[in-house]
């Protein structure tokens, strides 16, 4: 260590002559007084935003472990004892367990169905020339701009006509249709930018159209498919409006409806702690999915963005 200062002093003139000039200029360009101010303000807003999101969540989780009287008398306190019983009541009495299961069934069916249909449609639209190709593509993309509210009443009659009101499979089909526009739009760009040589190589190697799709192109679009799976999982898990209208059958309620029912019941039983426990239970799967797949999601979305 003792030799270091001498080393620095001998090389310092050379360094100042060559290296630091651009570095200093770089700093001056990028971090002038105004830049610091901008950075400070943006950090401040991000901090406020983060607090706005995180604090209610933390409060919800903390409240889920309190008794009703604790929630009402000292809303900001830490629970005196952890009330795991709240979760048991929410799961059994408020049937959150049942609703979660319903949601898992519906969302799994919805996501899997969406991926199968949208990947096939996007592949065909992006890689095959046929009359009406553009028209179909824009029709799907136009679906992105169509507000669900406007479709609600006709949709009700369609589902009713199919005899699927209040059923899980009815909801699955509607979720698939609802998710198709964005998924097709997204995967279209993905498939379009996969190298065409690979498909042609597979054709020459002896693969038919289905093999080319399932064995070559689909594996190549994996990151896009994963991104779409997560995206649609989160979106469909959060669905409230569609099940509210199309799924009046209480035994088939999805979680959003279950929580709403629990909330309405407050008027009679005021079981706040069970409500918070139910909310916490609901949130956990989404949080897990998001945290586990977060990098995949961002990776897939940006890969698509760069290519498309």
């Amino acid at each position, binding site marked *: 260590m003792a030799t270091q200062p001498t080393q620095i002093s001998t090389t310092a003139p050379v360094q100042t002559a060559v290296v630091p000039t651009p570095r200093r200029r770089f700093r001056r360009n990028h971090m002038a007084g105004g830049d610091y101010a901008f950075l400070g303000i943006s950090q401040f807003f991000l901090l406020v935003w983060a607090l706005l999101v995180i604090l209610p969540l933390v409060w919800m989780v903390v409240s889920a472990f309190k008794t009703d009287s604790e929630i009402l008398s000292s809303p900001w306190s830490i629970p005196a004892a952890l009330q795991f019983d709240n979760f048991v009541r929410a799961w059994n009495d408020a049937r959150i367990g049942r609703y979660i299961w319903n949601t898992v069934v519906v969302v799994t069916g919805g996501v899997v169905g969406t991926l199968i249909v949208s990947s096939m449609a996007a592949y065909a639209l992006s890689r095959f020339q046929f009359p009406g190709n553009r028209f179909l593509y824009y029709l799907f993309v136009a679906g992105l701009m169509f507000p669900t509210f406007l479709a609600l009443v006709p949709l009700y009659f369609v589902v009713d006509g199919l005899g699927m009101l209040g059923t899980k499979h009815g909801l699955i089909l509607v979720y698939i249709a609802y998710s198709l526009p964005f998924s097709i739009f997204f995967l279209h760009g993905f498939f379009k930018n996969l190298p065409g040589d690979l498909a042609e190589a597979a054709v*020459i190697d002896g693969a038919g159209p289905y093999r080319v799709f399932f064995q070559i192109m689909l594996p190549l679009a994996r990151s896009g498919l994963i991104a779409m799976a997560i995206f649609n999982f989160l979106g469909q898990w959060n669905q409230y409006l569609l099940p509210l209208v199309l799924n009046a059958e209480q035994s088939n309620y999805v979680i959003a409806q279950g929580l709403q029912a629990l909330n309405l019941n407050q008027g009679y039983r005021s079981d706040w702690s069970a409500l918070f426990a139910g909310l916490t239970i609901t949130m956990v799967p989404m949080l897990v999915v998001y945290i586990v797949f977060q990098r995949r999601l961002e990776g897939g979305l940006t890969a698509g963005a760069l290519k498309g």
Partner: protein
Amino acid sequence: MARVIFDGVFKRYGNSSAPAVTDLSMEIHDREFLVLVGPSGCGKSTAMRMIAGLEEVSEGRIIIGDRVVNDLPPKDRNVAMVFQSYALYPHMTVRDNLAYPLKLRKVQKAERERRVLEAARMLEIEQFLDRKPKALSGGQRQRVALGRAVVRDADLFLMDEPLSNLDAKLRVQTRAELIKLHDRVQTTTIYVTHDQVEAMTMGDRIAVMSLGVLQQLDTPQNLYDKPANKFVAGFIGSPSMNFVDVQIEDAEGRLYATNPGGFRMRIPDSRGASLARFKGETVTLGIRPEHLVERNHFGGNPETVLPVTVDVIELLGNESFIYLNSGNAVLTARMSPEVKVERGQKIEVTAEPDRFYFFDPKTDAAVA
């Protein structure tokens, strides 16, 4: 093993007026290494893709072996193709890449493994069999792509600029290996490239294409010695052939090539007969840079010389390129570095009589 015949083949895209391939007729012999060469957009890749079945034939017939393949799907044509991008399946190991075409042809597993190993050994990629393509260098990927063709035991290899993604040194090396590979497996090979050096060094015969039309199909040496037209003459050879538009003048029974810029050169008597019909008309004179010699180094007829001024000299060590002005014509000469000239110097150059080429300016066809 198979021959390939193009019989009056056209390829038209949509409603565009000019066909991508026009009336292509040629026969590629069994076991031949045929190079399709031409500038980009000349239809060479389209022609190859029609053989593979990746493009439909608009008109005419393509025959592989004894079968007309126009309506056969690619998988039934038993051709293997090597792509410029290599087109290796990125999600499969090298082993699976090689085995994939065999798997699709329902080759038994033991046989499959034997053939994969054999191909891998031939191309020296055994040690990479369990890697994914992204863990390989460009040259190694290229070998895997070749391996996928070799393993198939196909009737025909199609190679679409397979060397153009390699760096210059590796390209030369792989070129030699491809020739050796062809000698060994003897499979009829059609090789597309835009690089005339690749074409000259690799092809048994070369088909030169331009604007969708086959210009000439011949051995490399014949293409060089007897180009059928101005396009082939200019395309084959580097630096490319010098062209000067000249008038054929008759002075006392001797023919001269002249142009208004002051270019004047006596035409060797041996070429007089074929040029007689162009007397008083314009033809295109072609001389290859390597055939232009400085007068002091030339022992032939001293009258067939061209006075020129040295404009630029490029020394390359083993040779030099000398740019010459003669009137309004600019000529390139490729000379030995022993020829000492200076910029601005006036010298006289000439070529041997049978090294002059003449082209009909209306048809661009060579005047024999």
